[in-house]
C-alpha cells in the first residue's frame, strides 16, 4: 500500500515536470501580452510529431530532432504572434478566438499529415525502466525529461531575473505602462516571450513523444492542462507553475492508482474550479510579476 502510494507520488512528480514545461510557456506569454494562447498545446504537439517524423522516416534519435523542431515551432509561433498583433478591437475576446482557430488549424493539419493514429518512440532505450531505491520505477525517458525540463526552467528563471531582456519581460508583465515609459520595447519583449515559450514547447513535445504517447487531440488537452496549472499558480510565478504542475501530476496519478483511469481528468478539473472560485488569484498569490 505504501509502496503503491510512493510510486504514485513519484510518477505524479515526473508527470508534473512535463506539465510544467508546457505551462511555463503559456504563463510567460500571458504575462507579457495578457493573452492566453490557446494554440500553445498544439505547438508542443507539433514538436512531438516532428520528432516522430525524424525517427520514423530517417531513423534519427528523437533528441536529434530538437533543432529542426525548434526551427519549425519557433517559426509557427512567430506567425501566431504576427497574427495576434493585428487584432485591434475587443482584444480579449478576439485573441481567444483567433488562437482557438489556429489550434483547430494545427490539430487538423497534423491529422491530415500524420493521421489519427497514436504514436510513441520506437527507440527501446527511452522505454527501459530505471529502479530507484529498489521500489520506485521510472522510464529513462521520464527521468531525462524531468531533469532536462527542470534545467531548462531553471535557465529561464535565471534569465528572467538576471538578464536585461529577462527583466524587460518581467517589467512588462507587472506593469505595462511603467515598463514602456522606462524604455522597454514592448514588441521586442513580447516576441522574446513567444520565442522562449516556443523553446519550452519544443522540449516538452520531444519529451512527451519519448516518454508518453502522442495523438492529434493531445494539443487541446495540453493547452487546457497548462491553463489549469497557470490558474493554480496564480498567473505568473515560475515556481508557482512548478508547484501547480506537480500538484496536478500527483493528484492525477493518485486518482489513477486508487480510483479509475477514466477519472484522471476529473480530479484536475475539480481542483481547478475550486481554486478559481475560492481564490481567483491562484494558490500562490502574485498575478503581478513573473518569477520571484
Amino acid at each position, binding site marked *: 500500500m505504501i509502496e503503491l502510494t510512493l510510486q504514485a507520488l513519484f510518477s505524479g512528480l515526473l508527470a508534473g515536470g512535463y506539465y510544467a514545461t508546457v505551462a511555463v510557456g503559456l504563463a510567460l506569454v500571458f504575462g507579457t501580452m495578457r493573452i492566453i494562447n490557446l494554440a500553445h498545446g498544439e505547438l508542443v504537439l507539433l514538436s512531438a510529431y516532428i520528432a516522430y517524423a525524424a525517427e520514423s522516416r530517417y531513423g534519427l534519435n528523437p533528441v536529434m530532432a530538437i533543432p529542426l523542431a525548434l526551427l519549425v515551432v519557433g517559426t509557427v509561433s512567430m506567425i501566431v504572434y504576427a497574427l495576434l498583433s493585428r487584432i485591434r478591437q475587443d482584444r480579449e475576446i478576439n485573441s481567444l478566438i483567433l488562437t482557438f482557430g489556429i489550434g*483547430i488549424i494545427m490539430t487538423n493539419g497534423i491529422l*491530415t499529415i500524420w493521421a489519427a493514429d497514436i504514436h510513441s518512440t520506437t527507440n527501446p532505450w527511452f522505454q527501459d525502466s530505471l529502479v530507484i531505491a529498489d521500489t520506485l520505477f521510472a522510464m529513462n525517458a521520464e527521468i531525462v525529461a524531468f531533469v532536462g525540463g527542470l534545467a531548462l526552467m531553471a535557465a529561464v528563471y535565471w534569465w528572467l531575473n538576471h538578464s536585461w531582456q529577462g527583466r524587460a519581460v518581467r517589467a512588462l508583465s507587472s506593469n505595462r505602462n511603467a515598463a514602456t515609459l522606462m524604455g522597454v520595447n514592448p514588441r521586442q519583449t513580447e516576441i522574446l516571450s513567444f520565442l522562449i515559450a516556443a523553446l519550452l514547447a519544443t522540449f516538452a513535445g520531444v519529451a512527451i513523444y519519448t516518454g508518453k504517447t502522442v495523438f492529434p487531440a493531445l494539443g487541446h488537452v495540453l493547452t487546457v492542462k497548462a491553463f489549469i496549472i497557470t490558474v493554480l499558480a496564480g498567473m505568473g510565478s515560475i515556481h508557482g507553475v512548478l508547484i501547480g504542475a506537480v500538484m496536478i501530476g500527483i493528484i492525477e496519478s493518485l486518482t489513477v492508482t486508487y480510483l479509475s483511469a477514466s477519472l484522471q481528468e476529473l480530479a484536475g478539473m475539480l481542483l481547478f474550479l475550486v481554486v478559481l472560485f475560492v481564490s481567483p488569484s491562484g494558490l500562490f498569490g502574485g498575478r503581478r510579476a513573473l518569477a520571484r
Partner: protein
Amino acid sequence: MRHILLLAALVVAYAGVPLLFGGTPYILGLIVAALTIAGIAVAWALLGNLGGMVSFGHAAFFGVGSYGSAVLSMKLGVPVFPAVLLGGLAAALASVAMLPALRLRGPYFALAILAYAHIFQILATEMTPITGGAGGLLSIPRFPVLFGLDLGGKTGGYVIILTIVLLSALAYDAVRRSAWGLALKAMHDTEVATRVVGVPSTHLKAAMLALSAFITGVVGAFNAHFISFLEPDYAFSSTWTVLPIAAAIFGGYRTVWGPVLGALAIYLLDQLLFKPILPHGHQMVLGVLLCAMILLSPGGLLPALRRRSTGERHAHA
C-alpha cells in the same frame, strides 16, 4: 414590403425547402444538422454578445439537454415534446452550477466553462445506470405523428428544428431590444456605473447564461430524439462547441441572423465541399475561416455585407 419579404422567406423555409429536398434525404439531413448547429450558435452569440462571455463549453449544455430529454422519455415515459422542453430546463439547471464562474473574466470564464463540459462528460460516462454509460442509449423515442405529419422523419425533424432556431433567434432579438439588452451592452465597459443606477449586473448575466443554456439544451434534446441514439463522447463532443463558435463568428455574433446564416454556410460548405477534399482534417478550413474573419472582419460576414451595401459602420450589439 418588408412584411411580404418576411412572409415569402417563411413560406420558402417551411414549404419550399422540404418540397425541394424531400426527395434527397441526404441533403435534408445536412440541412437539419446545419440548423442544429445554428441553434447552438444563436445561443452562443446571445451569451457572447449580450453577456459579454466567450464560452468554450456549450457542449455541456447540449449534452445535458440531450441526456435529460432522452432519459426522461425512456425511463419515465414523458412524452417527447415536453421532454425536449424539460431537457432545456435541465441544461438551464446545469448552468446554475456554473454561476460562480460569472465572477470570472475573459479567458478564465471561457476555460472554466470548458472544465464544466469535461466534468459533465465524465459524469455522464460514469453514471451508467441512468445514462447507459459509454455504451450509450439506443432507440430513444422519436418525435410523434401530429396532425397527419410524421414528425419523426427527416421532413418533420426539419420543421421542428427550423421552428426552434426561429424562436431562439426571436428571443435573442427581443432581449437585445429590451431595457435588459441595453443594460447588458452597457455593462461590458462600465459595470459599476450600471449597478449604481439599479442594474443587478450579476443577475442579468446569470439570466443570459441560463437562457443560452436552455436554448442549447433544447437543441440537444431535439437532436437526441431526431437521431434516436446517444453516447457520452458524442453528446458532449467538442464539435458542439467548435462548429457553433465558427458559425457565430463567421456570420457575425453581434447580429441575430448572422449565427444562423453562418451555421448554414459553414456546415454545408464543410460537408459538401471540404470533406470530400480533406476527409480527415476538413475542420482545418473552419479554423482558417475563423482566423480570417477575426482578422479581416471581426464583426462577421453579415455586418460586413450590410456595411458594403449601405456604407454604414457596424454598431456594437
